[in-house]
């Protein structure tokens, strides 16, 4: 395969992997702090995309700033709104279920995701069809043979990487991040030490929702369209990526996202049986990895048993 074509496939894979990683990091954060699977996370991503789109429309109609500025302003508001949604989910759905089996939280959030998805399909005008997301960043491109890099893709790669590094820095090096880690390790002890465990949980949900907003907007900008069910498969793949990378490990979530995207691309290009089986191939490999490394590639080596 020519090097320029290979480079193009690699770029496509990294872009897709970035979106998966942003979703996977959210799952990992929720699991890390509360041992729960927030299964509406994919649909929250979708909500973030729709919120940003409508805010862009509102800001654009005022016609007071250029497109990139419209995007930034709209994104900030969308992320803030979505943060409140995340806090509401944490406060009213998850925290009350704190002492229930984790499966209950998974089910309840799965059902919430269905409600969100169906509400968008039914109540957003034209919601059952894909909706155009305008190209708000420069679409100038640079080509070298069969390799083409669009400026908006390059920007998203840089910003996405910065967001992931920023999230890791927040968790590892800030007081809030240390509090999140403390609550994740031992909630009772953290409380005794004066950490507001409920506040930390809600802050985690807000951060997760913020990441969802980034993933949703990136998906809209990259594909130039959003649709009501984009979060369903994103959620499944994001969750699988978090699991295979190691639930609770931020680096694992990123690795899992890139791995999944690579498996899908490889499946499309290299499988003799055809690309329609690429998801079967990708999930089969993920199952095999999980059988080999049950706690994920970068998770703890052994699950602690008491």
């Amino acid at each position: 395969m020519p090097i320029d074509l290979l480079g193009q496939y690699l770029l496509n894979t990294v872009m897709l992997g970035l979106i998966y990683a942003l979703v996977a990091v959210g799952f990992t954060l929720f699991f890390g702090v509360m041992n729960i699977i927030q299964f509406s996370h994919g649909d929250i991503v979708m909500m973030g995309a729709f919120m940003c789109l409508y805010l862009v429309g509102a800001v654009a109609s005022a016609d007071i700033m250029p497109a990139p500025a419209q995007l930034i302003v709209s994104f900030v508001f969308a992320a803030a709104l979505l943060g409140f949604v995340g806090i509401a989910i944490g406060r009213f759905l998850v925290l009350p279920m704190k002492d229930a089996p984790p499966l209950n939280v998974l089910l309840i959030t799965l059902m919430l995701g269905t409600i969100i998805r169906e509400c968008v399909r039914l109540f957003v005008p034209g919601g059952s069809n894909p909706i155009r997301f305008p190209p708000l960043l420069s679409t100038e491109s640079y080509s070298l043979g069969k390799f083409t890099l669009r400026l908006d893709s390059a920007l998203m790669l840089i910003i996405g990487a910065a967001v992931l590094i920023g999230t890791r820095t927040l968790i590892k090096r800030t007081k809030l991040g240390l509090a999140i880690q403390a609550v994740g390790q031992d909630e009772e002890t953290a409380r005794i030490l004066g950490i507001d465990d409920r506040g930390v949980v809600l802050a985690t949900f807000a951060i997760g929702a913020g990441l969802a907003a980034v993933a949703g907007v990136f998906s809209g900008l990259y594909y130039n369209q959003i649709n009501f069910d984009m979060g369903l498969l994103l959620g499944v793949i994001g969750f699988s990526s978090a699991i295979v990378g190691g639930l609770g490990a931020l680096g694992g979530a990123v690795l899992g996202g890139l791995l999944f995207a690579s498996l899908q691309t490889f499946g499309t290009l290299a499988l003799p049986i055809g690309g329609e089986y690429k998801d079967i191939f990708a999930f089969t490999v993920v199952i095999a990895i999980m059988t080999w490394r049950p706690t994920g590639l970068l998770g703890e080596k052994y699950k602690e048993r008491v």
Partner: protein
Amino acid sequence: MRLRNANAASKYNYQLVVLDDECKPSTGVQVATKAAADQTIVAGITHYCSAVAIATMGTYHRFNLPIVVWGSVLPEVTYGNKFPEVHRVNGTMIDGDRDASKFMRSRGYKTWVVIHDTTDYGKGHLKYFSEALNSDGGQIIGTFAVSSDQQDFTAELTKIKSLKPDVVYVGGLVPLAVRVRSQMEKVGVDAQFQGTGGILSDGFIAGLGKSAEGALAFREGAAVEKLPGGQKFLSLYENQGFEGPPEAYGPFAFAASDLLIDVIEKVGPSRSAIIEELNAKKEWDSIIGKIAFDDHGQNTVSATTLYVVQDGKWQVWDQSEYASGKRHLNSK
């Protein structure tokens, strides 16, 4: 619309029970079962999505509910079984794909890549379009089967870009077509876009904006303006105050309803009587022309209409600036 305008002198009061199949076979079977099991429902006007239609025909047969299909184009809906309950007023994809192949070859296109969804609809289009294209001397240089909810096509389209086809044919509905067309531009695939009747919707154009310009779609059946009752249908529709346009298959849905009401007026609201009358080998007048079912319940629809997106609207080819030569399709 047909029920709203049921003649005041009708023998019966008609009530429309609306059930949404969500274009999902599993949901379709549920709502088909619900309708068919309800003995107050005497007939059905069903389905748009072929994947749903093929999944539900057995249900209607099991409960002896007569139905008239108005949108689904999969041949197997009528020809896959010989169910006396099943009838269809619109054409099948065999005709559409045959005429599409002839037209595209007459424009000089030689090579195609086909992206199709893995439902019966997408697979059916692949099958019938391939057969027609082979007969017409065209060549399919790549085929990609994808799930109808797949979001990312960059891997497939990067491969397609290196194949350099003249045409990218999408055998799927609006969501798939929008994503493929949008990402074709992103990846830089320089080929003519060709779709099926399933993308003939304002949703396709709304999802793409200016990128929809020049996209082609072929639909079985004449354009509404050329239908015998087309103008009557359009003026009636305009007076109803509906939110959206009648869409590509609106006239067929109307014709299906019209036919059923006429049959019920004649034989009464009995499922078995309706089935017998629909299978009685006769012709009915309708806004789409004469309706005559063959022994599989399939109406003969001979014309195929080509549409092209021009300035944000689906335009009948013959009336477009592309046909007159003022604008040009993508060509190598």
